[in-house]
Structures are given as structure tokens and as C-alpha cells.
């Protein structure tokens, strides 16, 4: 195992710890906008994990997953925010 793959596996482990901490905030978040921002960070972490996995396996097809995830993460947070604004008026 070279130093490069060790670096990538360490980075994936750190991003997994990030996912766990984001899930804790998602569980204990006092209000609904806290959970929406936690979801936003969740999507960003998953994009980072997909990028590092693409580099680890050398398969270039996985980067399309990251493109689609970046599109749908933005759409998800915007639609949640509009749902909140419409439902509380």
C-alpha cells in the first residue's frame, strides 16, 4: 500500500467522521432550518467522498454522480426553504 492510497483512505475516514457529526446535528438540531443546513453539508460531504472514491479506484465514470449530486443538493435545500416559507404564513 503506497503513501498515496493511504492518504486517500485517511481522507475518506475523515469525511466519514464528518458525516457522523453532521448526523448528530441533524438529530439534535433545535429547529427545522438547522436540519436543512445539516442536509446541505451532508450532500457536500457525499460529493467529497465520491470524488475521493473516483480517485481511489481510477474509474472515471463516478464523477458524473458528483455532478448530479451537486445539482440535486441545491434543488433540495431551495425547495425545503420555500416549503418552510409557504407553510408558516
Amino acid at each position, binding site marked *: 500500500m503506497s*503513501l*498515496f492510497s493511504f*492518504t*486517500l483512505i*485517511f*481522507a475518506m475516514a*475523515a*469525511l466519514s*467522521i*464528518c458525516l457522523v*457529526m*453532521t448526523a*448528530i*446535528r441533524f438529530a439534535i438540531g433545535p*429547529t427545522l*432550518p*438547522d436540519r*436543512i*443546513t*445539516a442536509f*446541505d*453539508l451532508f450532500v*457536500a*460531504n457525499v*460529493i*467529497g467522498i465520491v*470524488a*475521493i472514491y*473516483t*480517485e481511489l479506484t481510477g474509474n*472515471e465514470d463516478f*464523477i*458524473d454522480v*458528483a*455532478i448530479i449530486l*451537486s*445539482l440535486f443538493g*441545491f434543488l433540495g*435545500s*431551495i425547495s*425545503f*426553504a*420555500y416549503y*418552510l*416559507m409557504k407553510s*408558516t404564513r
Partner: protein
Amino acid sequence: MFENVNFLLIREIISSVLIIIGVMFMLISTIGLLRFPDFYIRMSAITKGATLGLGLILSGMGIYFNEPDMFLKVVLIICFTFITSPVAAHVIGRTAVRNKIPFWDRTNLEEFKDYMHNEHQFHRDHEKDNRPNK
């Protein structure tokens, strides 16, 4: 001149350094999400730190693959993330202000209260002008 240089090794080193810096940014912003006292401060930490960390990770991956189509996809993702992340943060923050999510008790709110007072005055005048039976 460059016969003895191992370009794969150089690319691996640059990519590793960029990925480690990006992961550190994302780790710090996630700790900020978990530890900061207020919704607005937490949203600020996420919007700046996670976007920069994601850009660094993706550019490190693009440098490692060293191909034009991969570079184009990486630039596409980075541009889209850098455009949409502040927009999403602004929409969520405006929704939180409208829903009266409480601020931290040590936040200085004087200018914000003046602004909200003026805005509400303006809206009341606006409704008064548009009211039909008066």
C-alpha cells in the same frame, strides 16, 4: 531536460496535499456545525468552509487524472457549487429571519432591529395604500 522526472509522483504529491487541505477545511466546518451556539453562525461556518473544502478536493482529483474531459467536469462542479451555495444560504437565512428563529444572546442586534423596524413601517404603509375601503 525532464527525462528523469517522475510526473506521476509529482501529480500524486500535489493531489494528496490539496485533498488533505480540503478535508481539513471540511472537518473544521463540521466541528463548527456541531459546536457553534446559533443557527446563523452555524450556517455561516458551513457556507464558507464546506464550499472551499469541496473545491480543493475536486481540484486535487482533477490534477491527478490529468485529462481534458475530467478537468472540464471538475470545473463544472466547482463553478456550480460556488454559485449555488451562497444562494441557498441566503434563501435559508431569509426563511429563518421570517420564521423568527432566535439569535444568540450575545449578538449585537441594534442595526438589525432598526432595519426590521423600517421595513415593517414600509410594508404597513404599503398595505395602507393598497387597502380598498379607506
